């Protein structure tokens, strides 16, 4: 559609969308009644535990499970030998991550598992498993892993994009760009080139992975687990175990945080294999240490950026090379880092190169806008430094170069309607931007971008005999989305919010649903909910028409009622949804609307963050004084939960910028697999996080909704680094900016 087309919702007065009702699952969560992954049990349940490699890289010569199997209380022991061959490359990598094949590829890699009648018996059994390891040299750092003489994890897996002669740890090379970067840099008045490094971090969800699996002798299985996508779990486990998808029913528990870290499987195939072998239900719960060592942290990165700017603030060229290690298997998000890092800028000359590298670390998985925060950190730091050097206002420069509606994005496509300039203008006008700063204090600004997308979605909306409505959807609720679905259904149907209840159905109840990720749920499931509601409305209008003996075309739906229209207007009193529901049986049967779609048309979401920080020059400690998030939500269905996404992402970014990192010893083992030494932000570290919701409607959604969950983590690394660099008087180019690092940089600058 043309960019100046009016949005279909423009001018619509919403009654429920945009208000702040209490979420439907709230009471269960404040009373402790809600059931999370580890809160389920079954009669005859066994405890499952995993034996993990203590070596960063080792060949597994043999595994002897006989003594473990013989221990009283032990009902099953599994290794890779208990899983068949998997032909699909991606599935095979997943299998070899959840149960090692011929090599242990990282400290914590699963090599065997037991199921026993008690935790103590299971722990004893693990000690009785004899593994013969041949320890191999390991490599942890991304740049070291790219060296031609680095220890190699997998031979022959570099794909066709990798030049011959490079390290076998390089899996893929990605490049995009247009224009002439060299010419652009030559035309600049100032060129800055910098290198940056970021450490691996973890999503840090408070709930460890947990599941309960059972399988009958007929091969029918049930799985209860905390996940962002129970359909993905079903399909992946069925593929790995050689089952048909319909034989496995997965129920998603309430989930205690995901952020991308629960978009794959870790325990689930193992629990099912143990359940199959023992003939009993098996419950598996990761310890916090296992979560850090053996789930999916982010990539650590090494990034070079070169940007040229004219004295008037025009960016003449942007260039970046990003090197990401994705742990022990291919698939780091370096491509998304490369594509998103320049997205906020309208550039005639741009090039970004990305390298996907493997290393002896746990396989990375998504963390909220995967790959984007690191690339943005590097680019936004250099833009900040250029502004400082040329004496230019940071927001003015971004406005001058901003991507707008119709801009050809740095990574290729033309943008549709986007909200970047609205976000930047809001930041510029906000009192935070001009508030005075004291000694050792600095202000940082950064923008961020994330794609968002749609995906497979099914919603079934059922009208109950008493006129209440049930909405069944297939996407685990990680941010309050059930409230948003309930609101959208109630809005369309014209009935009170309290008359609608949204549930997350198990995999037997609906068709395929993509994972809760990509900021897709309020967009895609919302769209499907609205269409399902409209489908139910069509049916209810037809029922009223039958009762009145008029044409179905001559009935409209208004304020929760079917009303005769056109030539019959006023002839019959309106029928409420409840009244129509009460006679559903008499007029044709139960009333429902459903919608299944591979949703397209997701809009991108831009954000800008402002942060004030204070540095203690004696200790290097950083205090966040003030933080404001400006982000385009398209249409905020439930503003409190949109604010929550802004605040949560910002704080994760603060932790990533200041304290969080995976620390490895010379032996390649993780040294800080716990919340004491992997330091996430606590309440006393932070001020209130102010939020400003911008709404530039997304043409692809009936209400204009854009996904917001991920963009909020993209700006903070750079915004905080820019603030700290300003406060400390020296540019920090390595994350996290923990006190020793900041102090070291200050001391080095002092000379």
């Amino acid at each position, binding site marked *: 559609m043309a960019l100046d087309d009016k949005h279909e919702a423009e001018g619509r007065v919403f009654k429920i969308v945009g208000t702040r009702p209490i979420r439907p699952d709230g009471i269960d969560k404040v009373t402790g009644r809600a059931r999370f992954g580890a809160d389920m049990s079954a009669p005859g349940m066994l405890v499952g535990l995993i034996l993990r490699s203590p070596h960063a890289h080792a060949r597994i010569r043999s595994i002897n499970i006989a003594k473990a199997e013989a221990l009283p209380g032990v009902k099953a022991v599994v290794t890779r030998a208990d899983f068949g061959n998997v032909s699909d490359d991606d599935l095979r990598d997943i299998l070899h991550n959840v149960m090692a094949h011929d090599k242990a590829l990282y400290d914590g890699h699963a090599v065997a598992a037991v199921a026993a009648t008690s935790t103590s018996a299971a722990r004893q059994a693990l000690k009785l498993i004899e593994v013969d390891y041949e320890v191999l040299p390991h490599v942890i750092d991304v740049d070291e892993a790219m060296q031609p003489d680095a220890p190699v994890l997998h031979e022959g897996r570099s794909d066709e994009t990798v030049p011959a002669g490079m390290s076998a740890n390089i899996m893929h090379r990605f490049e995009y760009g247009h224009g002439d970067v060299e010419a652009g840099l030559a035309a600049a008045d100032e060129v800055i080139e910098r290198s940056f490094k970021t450490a691996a971090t973890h999503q840090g969800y408070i709930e460890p992975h947990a599941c309960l699996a059972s399988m009958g002798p007929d091969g029918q299985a049930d799985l209860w687990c905390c996940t962002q996508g129970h359909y993905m779990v079903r399909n992946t486990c069925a593929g790995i175990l050689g089952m048909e998808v319909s034989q496995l029913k997965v129920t998603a528990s309430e989930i205690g945080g995901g952020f991308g870290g629960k978009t794959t499987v870790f325990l689930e195939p193992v629990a099912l294999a143990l359940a199959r072998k023992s003939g009993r239900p098996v419950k598996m719960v990761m310890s916090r240490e296992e979560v850090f060592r053996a789930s999916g942290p982010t990539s650590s990165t090494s990034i070079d950026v070169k940007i040229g700017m004219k004295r008037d603030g025009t960016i003449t060229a942007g260039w970046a090379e990003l090197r990401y290690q994705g742990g022990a298997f291919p698939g780091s998000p370096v491509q*998304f880092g490369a594509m998103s890092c320049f997205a906020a800028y309208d550039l005639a000359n741009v090039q970004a190169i990305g390298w996907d590298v493997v290393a002896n670390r746990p396989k990375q998985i*998504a963390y*909220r806008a*995967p790959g984007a925060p690191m690339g943005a950190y590097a680019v936004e730091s250099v833009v900040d430094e250029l502004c400082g050097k040329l004496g230019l206002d940071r927001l003015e420069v971004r406005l001058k170069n901003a991507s707008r509606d119709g801009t050809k994005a740095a990574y*290729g496509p033309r943008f549709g309607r986007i909200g970047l300039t609205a976000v930047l203008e809001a930041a510029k006008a906000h009192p935070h931007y001009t508030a005075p700063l004291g000694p050792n204090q600095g202000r940082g600004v950064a923008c961020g971008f994330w794609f*968002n*997308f749609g995906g497979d979605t099914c919603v079934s909306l059922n009208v109950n005999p008493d006129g209440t409505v049930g909405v069944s959807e297939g996407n685990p609720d990680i941010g309050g989305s059930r409230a948003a679905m309930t609101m959208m259904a109630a809005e369309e149907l014209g009935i009170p919010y309290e008359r609608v209840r949204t549930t997350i159905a198990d995999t037997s109840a609906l068709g395929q649903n993509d994972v809760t990720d990509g900021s897709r749920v309020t967009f895609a499931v919302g769209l499907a909910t609205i269409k399902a509601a409209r489908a139910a409305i069509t049916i209810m209008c037809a029922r009223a028409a039958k009762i009145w003996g008029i044409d179905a075309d001559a009935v409209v739906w208004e304020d929760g009622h079917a009303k005769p229209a056109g030539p019959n207007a006023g002839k019959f009193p309106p029928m409420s949804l409840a009244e129509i529901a009460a006679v559903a049986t008499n007029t044709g049967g139960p009333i429902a609307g459903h919608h299944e779609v591979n949703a*397209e048309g997701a809009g991108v979401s831009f954000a800008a963050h402002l942060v004030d920080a204070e540095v203690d020059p004696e200790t290097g400690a950083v205090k966040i004084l003030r933080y404001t998030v400006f982000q385009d939500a398209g249409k905020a269905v439930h503003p409190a939960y949109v604010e929550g996404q802004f605040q949560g992402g910002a704080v994760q970014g603060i932790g990533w910028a200041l304290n969080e990192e995976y620390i490895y010893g010379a032996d390649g083992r993780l040294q800080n697999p716990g919340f004491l030494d992997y330091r996430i932000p606590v309440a006393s570290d932070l001020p209130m996080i102010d939020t400003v919701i911008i709404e530039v409607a997304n043409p692809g959604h009936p209400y204009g909704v854009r996904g917001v969950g991920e963009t909020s983590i993209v700006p903070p690394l750079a915004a905080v680094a820019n603030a700290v660099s300003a406060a400390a008087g020296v540019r920090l180019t390595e994350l996290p900016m923990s006190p020793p690092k900041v102090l070291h940089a200050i001391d080095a600058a002092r000379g």
Partner: protein
Amino acid sequence: MVRVAIWGSLRAATGGRAEVEVEAANLRELLDRLAEAYPGIQPQIDRGVSVVIDGLVYNDSWFTPVRPDSEVVLLPRIVGG
């Protein structure tokens, strides 16, 4: 004919061309014709691509119409977190 923008590292398969033309009426035909004309693209298509048509991202929707004046850009398959 539909013009399709090819990203940098994929241009090795198209003889260095940043933009190619194929005859296609929908997304499926587009990818099939691209793979036929430039077999070096097949491994990437197998790994996964997102196709941006007139500014909107499409994953796997075979029958999404593509018009001769559509702006089509190939991207690596986008996933979220």
